[in-house]
Every structure is written in C-alpha cells, then in structure tokens.
C-alpha cells in the first residue's frame, strides 16, 4: 500500500532526524530583550568578519536566559546569557548546582532610561525624581503629612508642569527596566520628598520603608506595560497626555513621534549618561560559560569582538544604536583575554 509506505518512510525520517547528534559549530546566546539588539548587531558583524558561522541570538528576558544558562554544561546548553541586570546570588548557586561553576561576567556598557511623551502633547520637558514620585506613588507628602496620593493632574504638585491628567505607561514587573525605574526614580523621589522619613517616623522599620518606597499607585493612573516599547509607543500615540518609559535607543529611533524630558535638568544623551550626569541608567551584561571556551568554536572570539573598541567603543555601531560605551572597556577586554571568572 502506498499509504503504509508513506507512513513508514515518514516515521523513519522523523526517527533519523531526531536521532542525529548535532555537533554544534555556532555560538548560542539567549537572554534579555534589551541586550538583544546589541547582541544581534555584534553577531551580524562577527559573522561577516570571521570564518565562524553567525552566532544564534535569542531573546526571552534576563531571568529566562540565565535560567537556561544555568541548566548545565554541554553542547545542548547555551554558551552566553545576556542580562540587563547583574546575575543574582541565587542564580549563581543554581548554576553551581548544575555544574556551571566558572562564569565570566562581561559588562558591555550602559543603557539610559528616558521619559518621553507625544511630540505635540503637553510640555512634559523637565521632570525631577520627586515629580515622578508625586505623580505615581500610592502615598505622598502633602503639607508635611503622609497621605494617600490625592494628585490627579501634574500641576497639582508642581505649578511648572502642565495642567494635564496624570497617565504614565511604565514597564511591567517582568522587565529588568522596571527594577531600575523603581530604584533610581521612585525610591529617589521618595527620599527627596521626605516621604521615606515620614514613613520611618510613622513607625515603619527602615527595610519596610525602603520597600514601601518602591510601590506604584494602582488606581489606573500608572499602567504597567508587559510588552515591548512598541506597545508603550502605541499607547502614547493614542493618549495625548500620557508619558511613557523607554530605553534611550528606542527613543532615538522614534524622534519623529516622541519628545524626551530632562531628569533633574539633565538631558538624556549617550554623553550625559557616560559622564554619570543623567541619573537613570543601568549597566548591561553578558555571562560566558568558561567551560565552553575551546569547545564551541568562536566563543572567545565572539566575546572579544563584542567588547572590542571598534564595536563597543564610543564611535562603534553599538554606540550609534544607543548603547552608552563603558569607560572601563580596556579592563573588560583584558578580563576576557585572561578568561577571568567571577569569584
């Protein structure tokens, strides 16, 4: 019967292809979606300049990437995890348990986080951390008292800001960006307005007050966006009065639709971030399995290429795309050359 034959040969082919053990000849990378554009730019240039095949880069988030990274050592595990935050103690322990002990940590540069709004919307051009805290925290200081946030318009607490309804689109909790937003903006505003002192004075322990300072109001004026920056952009497009949180690189690619606000008087540019003047930035990393160096062809070369001056330096393609070059790049290059692991 032709059908029996077809079935048998299909099953045979399926069995054969699954049974083939693939000797991997390309570097495999997974992790943060913030690092993905940079990693893909490097992978592309790497494939063009070396005889090794183009590395395979996947996204999925910092935590998911590090989890896959820590699954173990061997050809069927990834070689590099990209992360928009430093690896956590818990993850290092999980890695060690699976036999991934020697990890090389590479800092590739810094990423700025900016507040932007519709180009033709209200004049959201200058914020301070206190403004954002006053607009978005659940409890704020009004006339020296800690009260539930009564503000519905920006002009309610700062006459210099537009008379517009508060509406902010901020990254959801699964994003690494959220952590930076909470710590560098909300918590800073919490301290600056004196809300933190008031909480401690009100009987909270210091740790509890610090945690309470990271909270964001939940009455609909602050909206979590779990998707990408494109989704935030679409929401901003539809809401004249809204402000959104973006990465610097994303903003620089969409200057025809968005205008950016300064933070405490500093405009976000690669220069101000590199100088440390712009307060809301974070380092970006990738992590290499030392055990895979020498086994997976091109792994060390890829890592060295990533942090080479012509790629990650101030005039390189990464910096053109929006990455803020790391002033200590030379130290990082030496670290990879010597294969120094984390201790």
């Amino acid at each position: 019967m032709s059908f029996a034959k077809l079935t048998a040969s299909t099953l045979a082919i399926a069995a054969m292809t699954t049974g083939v053990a693939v000797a991997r000849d390309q570097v495999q990378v997974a992790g943060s979606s913030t690092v993905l554009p940079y990693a893909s730019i490097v992978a592309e240039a790497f494939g063009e300049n070396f005889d090794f095949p183009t590395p395979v880069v996947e996204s999925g988030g910092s935590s998911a990437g590090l989890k896959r990274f820590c699954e173990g050592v061997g050809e069927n595990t990834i070689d590099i995890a990209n992360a928009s935050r430093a690896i956590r103690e818990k993850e290092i322990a999980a890695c060690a348990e699976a036999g991934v002990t020697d990890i090389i940590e590479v800092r590739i540069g810094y990423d700025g986080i900016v507040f932007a709004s519709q180009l033709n919307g209200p004049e959201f051009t200058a914020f301070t951390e206190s403004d954002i805290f006053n607009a978005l925290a659940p409890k704020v200081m009004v006339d020296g008292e800690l009260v539930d946030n009564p503000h519905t318009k920006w002009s309610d607490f700062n006459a210099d800001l537009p008379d517009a309804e508060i509406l902010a689109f901020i990254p959801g909790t699964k994003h690494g960006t959220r952590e930076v937003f909470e710590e560098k903006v909300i918590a800073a505003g919490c301290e600056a307005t004196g809300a933190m002192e008031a909480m401690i004075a009100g009987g909270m322990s210091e740790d509890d007050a610090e945690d309470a300072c990271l909270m964001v109001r939940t009455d609909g004026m602050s909206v979590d966006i779990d998707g990408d920056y494109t989704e935030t952009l679409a929401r901003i497009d539809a809401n004249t009065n809204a402000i959104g949180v973006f990465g610097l690189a994303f903003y620089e690619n969409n200057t025809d639709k968005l205008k950016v606000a300064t933070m405490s008087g500093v405009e976000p540019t690669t220069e101000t971030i590199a100088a440390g003047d712009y307060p809301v930035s974070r380092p970006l990393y990738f992590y290499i399995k030392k055990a895979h160096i020498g086994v997976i062809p091109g792994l060390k070369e890829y890592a060295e290429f990533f942090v080479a001056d012509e790629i990650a330096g101030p005039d390189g393609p990464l910096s053109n795309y929006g990455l803020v070059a790391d002033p200590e790049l030379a130290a990082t290059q030496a670290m990879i050359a010597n294969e120094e692991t984390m201790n």
Partner: protein
Amino acid sequence: MTDATNTGSLYDVDARTKKRNAAEKRFRIYGMIAIGLGLVFLVALLSTIVVRGIPAFQQTKLTLPIALPEETLDKSGVRDIEVMKKVSTFGYNPLIEQALADALDANGIENPFEDAKGLKPILSSSAAAVVRDEVLANPELVGTTHTFEILAASRVDGYLKGRVTRESVARDNNIDAAHFDVVDALRDAGIIAKGFNFDFITGADASESRPEQAGIGVSMLGSLFMMFVVLGLSLPIGVAASIYLEEFATQNRFTDIIEVNISNLAAVPSIVFGILGLAVFIQFMHLPQSAPLVGGLVLTLMTLPTIIISTRASLKAVPPSIREAALGIGASKMQTVFHHVLPLAMPGILTGTIIGLAQALGETAPLLLIGMVGYIASNYPDGVASGFLDPNSAMPAQIYEWAKRADPAYYERAWGGIIILLVFLMTMNILAVILRRRFERRW
C-alpha cells in the same frame, strides 16, 4: 378560507400581504448591507496591507565605483588571503565613504560636510561586508577600482519612498536634512536609485541597525520545513485514524468519547498546543528549542483534528453502494477501503489537508512558546537535517518580530511580510478549490 366575506379582487394587495412583502424587502436590504459592510472591511484591509507593504518590495541602492588600494587591503602585497582577512569591515568603511565623496566631486555636487565621514549616514552599514566579501572572493580586484551596488541606509530609503521627510528628521541624531540634499543630487546624477528588492524575498533577517538588509527568505525556509513535518505526520496519522474510526471501529461508548474529543480538540485555542509542546517536546524530550522540527510537531497536533474531521466527512460522503458492491464481489474489507472508498474520498481529504496546512502556516501563538519568536533568523540551513534541527523562525513569527522592533523601517518590512504570507495562503486555498472542482464526484 376564513375570509369568506372578502369580495375584492385577488390582484388587490391586502394589508397583511403588504406587511409580509415589506418584511421580505427589509430582510433583503439587511442582507445587502451586511455583505456591503463585509466588502468594505475587506477592501479596507487589503488596501491597507498593499499600500503599506508594497514599499518593502522596493529598495534604494547606490552604484558606486570604489577604489581598492593595496596598502590598506593587502599588507602582504602578494594577495595572501589570510593577511587580507585581517582587514575587518571597519577597515573597508572609510574606503566606501571616500568613494561616495569622490562620486560627489565627479558629478559636481558639493559635499556640505567637513569630510567623507560626514556622508556615512547615507550608506547602509552592510556595504562594508558586501565589498569585503567580493574582494576576498576575487583578490585580483585589489589595486583596481571596481563598481559595486550597495544598499542605502534605511532612512535614505524611507526618504525616497516618502516615509521619512525633512521635518521628521529634524530631531533625529542619525541623519540631517543636509544628507537629503546630497541624496536628491545623487538621484539626479543617477547614482542612487530605487529597484525591485529581491533580497527581501530571499534574504536573511538582519540586526536592528540595518533594516534595509532584512529579508524573509530564511524564515520562509523555516516555515517550509515545518510544513514538511506537519504534512508528513498529520496526513498519514489523520487518515489512518479516520479510516479506522469510520470503516472498522464498532460504535460503542469508547469510540463515542474519542469522536467527541476530536471535535473538542479542533476548537482548542492554539496557544494551548504551544504550552503542551514546550512541556513535552522541549522540557521532557529535550528536542532543540526554536527548531522547525518542534514547531512542526506542535502544529501537527493542531492540524490533526482538522484533517481527521474533513477526512471522515469525505469518507462518509462515499455512498454505501460502492462498499456493498465491492464486498459483494468478494473483496475484503481492507481491499474495499483502499481500492474503492479511499480513492473516491481523496479529493476531499486533500482539500481538508491543504486548508489545515494553510491554517498551520499562518499560526503564530504556539510558536511564541517554543522560542521561534525573538530569534534572529540570520543563518540559512545548510542541509536537510540542519533545516529541521537548527534554530529558525517562521514567516508569521518573523512578521511579529519585525513589528516589535524600534526602527520604523522594520514596520514597513512587517507589512511586506504579510503580503508574502497572504500570497502563500491564497495559493494554497486556490489549490484546494481547484482540486475540489477537478476531482470531486457528486452522487
């Protein structure tokens, strides 16, 4: 007739008839409005797709003579390929920028920038790789001037297509209106021109910084390998299951439960199959993530119920007299099925299979979970095994990926990708219609 007292003519329309006729007229109008609305939506949808997607099939290119000096490209002087490889694409960039500056001079166009480097935003960063590959493939080009066709940057491309304007780049750090003055002059000189974009159909995906280079070719191959898996598994399994259920199985409570569940499975949201695939194929069986094989297996699960249901319907449509005649002259049950029933049911089975495949081809949700989204499909598979097992994307996943990217030029690519996907789907559906028209027999 209760209306015996009615003495009027039958041709006079009474009030009740009028009411009934009016109701019918109204209903016809509702129907026409419904169809009209549907058509309006369809036209709006298709015209949006075409208007936004067509620009992706055009690409701006520069035709530039580029001088390839020996002292920068071949330090050995003897065309030693290993020495020449040491010059990276970053070494080629200044040559290309200089070539563009020279072309401006040759055509009497003023360079508004201090030096050749100021012209960089006009060129795609892929240009250096094009030149380098060509030089490494033909070392004898070193020392000569060779004419290359290189891509223009995405913003220049957008300017010639009307997507980017001088106003919209006023606040852009990457490019100035002065660059567009140069581009206008270059276009008049015939150095820069738009042409059909074959690379979009055959090319690989590119990184975020060069949307002008991105193509859908690699993910098309990914979809193709997935469809092989779907066809190879779901057709034999689906047909065997339906033949057994329809022709051999006895009707009892057990087969009833199976039948109900197959119908239920057809209605299960596709994302559920994605989660199942993640749990079973990747986490339990350790098949490679992002591989078309896994994608195909997941889509097989999704397509099976569709194929089983359509196969059973077409088996049922074969009249019992055919079976009885075959049995009557002494054929065994299996001979009856395979010699007589199945060939007659084949057009229906194939139609169902093609529709199921078309559905699987356009499916994105299950692929989200098995890592085929968020992956940069930049490598062509180098063989059949690698086609099934190496990470790849699929067409709908590639479109989703492009729509997410920061550079607005990728948005245009996403619409272009939709056109290609729609062409595939339409071809498959037309094929199904033709098969049905051609071979289907009515009883």
